[in-house]
């Protein structure tokens, strides 16, 4: 950290001008991947994290954004969403929630993934990755698309064997996304350590034998996936999911409007501390999809960052059955950086007052 700062200082002395494109100043950084939980400044150059330090002088930066009073985290990872071509759009549902990486579950197969790349991945600023349904040729489909395929998805015990076969051939994990439908216990014997079982709050909890097996549990929401009575009991019993996600679909994009900030707020309302929640939307999902370069604020990493505000007041949350939970806290995303660019900034922290800007556009 100190070496980085010295290099920056040396560069400035050599060039006599700001070296960092952007500095996020004074935020409470929560970065479990690197064990950081305290006040740090973050410097960004050309879309990458250049330095993280206790204090970066403002003179080193072309632009300083004051984020004191807010939490600064790696861009969040939403490991489970449904973003079909011509369906829900990724960006406003993700980036407005601090999500810079979203993983679609099952909109594409190994055969249709190239089409999916054109119609969804390339049209989104959010990084869109995919659990795909296995097609005829798992290895072939993977060949050109290793950058976006993170595993295979099955929707029931009947489709699980094909997904497991493809996953074993390609050394990738499987996600079982049953959209809340109960499954026979046999699935827990077939799923392997490192596979992901989602929607754990839609039905009765998985058997305790399954919980110790290395299987990764995803606390998701979606239209039918999240019930306070199931989640509250499960969390009170001390069982935390490995990841937290939205399971976003057309129902949960509206009522309740369960973007990732809303889902995280529900866990907060059910008594889970913030740092444990952040772990489950950054370092843990990154590990689950074998992408350790994501979910982290590390020198050299792509600058994907979320700035979150923990609001105090009276807030009401609805579950999939529209039961209400009232809480005195709400977590929402106020600023998102994707590849070093500010893409969401609802408080205008990175923007200039128009009257101070002088003439702009075509005005003289």
């Amino acid at each position, binding site marked *: 950290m100190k070496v980085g700062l010295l290099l920056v200082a040396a560069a400035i002395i050599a060039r006599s001008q700001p070296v960092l494109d952007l500095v996020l100043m004074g935020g409470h950084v929560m970065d479990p991947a690197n064990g950081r939980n305290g006040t740090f400044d973050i410097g960004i150059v050309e879309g990458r994290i250049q330095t993280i330090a206790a204090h970066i002088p403002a003179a080193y930066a072309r632009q300083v954004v004051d984020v004191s009073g807010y939490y600064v985290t790696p861009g969040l990872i939403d490991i489970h969403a449904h973003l079909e071509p011509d369906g829900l759009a990724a960006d*406003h549902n993700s980036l407005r929630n601090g999500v810079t990486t979203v993983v679609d579950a099952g909109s594409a197969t190994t055969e249709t993934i190239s089409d999916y790349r054109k119609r969804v991945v390339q049209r989104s600023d959010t990084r869109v990755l995919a659990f795909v349904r296995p097609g005829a040729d798992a290895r072939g489909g993977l060949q050109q698309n290793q950058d976006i395929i993170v595993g295979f998805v099955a929707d029931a015990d009947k489709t699980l064997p094909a997904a497991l076969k493809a996953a074993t051939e390609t050394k990738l994990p499987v996600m079982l996304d049953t959209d809340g439908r109960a499954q026979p216990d046999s699935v827990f014997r077939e799923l392997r350590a490192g596979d992901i079982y989602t929607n754990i709050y839609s039905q009765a909890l998985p058997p305790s034998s399954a919980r110790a097996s290395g299987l990764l549990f995803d606390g998701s929401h979606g239209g039918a996936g999240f019930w306070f009575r199931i989640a509250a009991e499960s969390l009170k019993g001390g069982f935390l999911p490995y990841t937290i996600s939205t399971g976003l679909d057309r129902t949960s994009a509206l009522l309740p*409007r369960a973007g990732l900030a809303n889902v995280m707020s529900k866990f907060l309302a059910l008594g889970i501390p913030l740092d444990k929640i952040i772990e489950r939307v950054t370092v843990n999902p990154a590990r689950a999809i074998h992408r350790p370069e994501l979910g982290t604020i590390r020198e050299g990493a792509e600058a994907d960052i979320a700035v979150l505000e923990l609001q105090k007041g009276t807030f009401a949350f609805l579950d999939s059955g529209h039961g209400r939970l009232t809480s005195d806290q709400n977590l929402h995303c106020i600023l998102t950086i994707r590849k070093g660019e500010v893409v969401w*900034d609802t408080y205008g922290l990175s923007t200039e007052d128009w009257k101070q*800007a002088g003439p702009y556009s075509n005005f003289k």
Partner: protein
Amino acid sequence: MKQIASGIFWSLVLLPWISSAQPRYDLVIRRGHVIDPANGRDAVMDIATSGGKIVRVADLIPANEARKSIDATGLYVTPGLVDLHAHVFGYSGAILPDDSALPAGTTTVVDAGGSGWRTFDTMKSRVISQSLTRVLVFLNIVGHGMVGQKFEDDVSDMDPAKTAQTIMAHREDIVGIKTAHFGGKGWDAIDRAVEAGRLSKTPVMVDDKILTNSGRTTREKLMVRLRPGDIHTHLYNDRQLEVIDRFTGKLQPWMTEARKRGVLFDLGHGGGSFLWPVATRAMAQGFPPDTISTDLHSSSIMIPESDMANCISKLMNLGMSLQDAILRSTVNPAKAIGRYPEIGTLKEGQVADIAVFRLKSGVFAYKDAWRKKLLGTKKLECVLTVRNGRLVFDAEGRAFPEWTSAGKYEVLP
């Protein structure tokens, strides 16, 4: 005799109890400040709906007369907003409307030229019939719709007859014509759109590039080429329509003349079409938009955050009253497309499209197309939306019970 009389007496006494056992309304929204410009309402009132329609608006409707009662104390209740300019098909930034419009209190969007006569059927099956939001259409004069400069410059695909034919075959969905982004010289695009408008008896919405060598001027467009009732959009943009003289800061004289003529001016905020230097000067010189609209697309809802509630908020911070803003977001757009009073009002018998808003005080940053901010003191936020009598958005959980008191529930209605 006495027993019969007693029986009749007690039946009469108990009658209200018996009849109230069956709630006669589906939903009642109570104690909200109703703003319904069409019916001259601007007061605390209760609204009851039944079978997807508004059935009663009155000073006091008891909660137990409805299956569901929502307390709107301290909130504003308006007709569902009508967004005259959105992109939900065709255009590269188009997004499905439901998860952007409904949470902003917008129950009707008008797609501004995403489809042309060649692609309308696809739009109907892929977007219109799959959306909870009511989607109406300005059909692009370009047969292929708004699918790129190459197509939008192609005059040979601007067929007034075919465009008008498609409109007349789909009057329930198509309300007018759009011409946009024409980069060529002369008036062909606008003239052909207006011709289609004449044939189909519908208005034209125009988004025009006034390039240096285009052979077009704003003045001629507004005073000659467009008809009364035609709509010019992207009002507070300074690239395409000269509202403000960029050297003197004065409102251009043809703006007032065109308004007197009956040309309508639509905000069309978008990602690139709202500038504080233009908006502040225009509002200060008495030139608000006739209709408030968002130009909804994938980038306009990011940094600019231009949903209907925020567009209204921006104008309120420039001095427009809430009542006036609601008029320009409901009645005016509904009239512009010939759909008044079926939409844009809270009239008994009309569809139950209702929005509930909280008006917040504080400090709020509003960004323009150049990411320059204006700090405002007011913000209108949608907290609840009813579309076709059905609750579709409820940010504060007003319509539902605490989960601990609801027993073991499936989906609570």
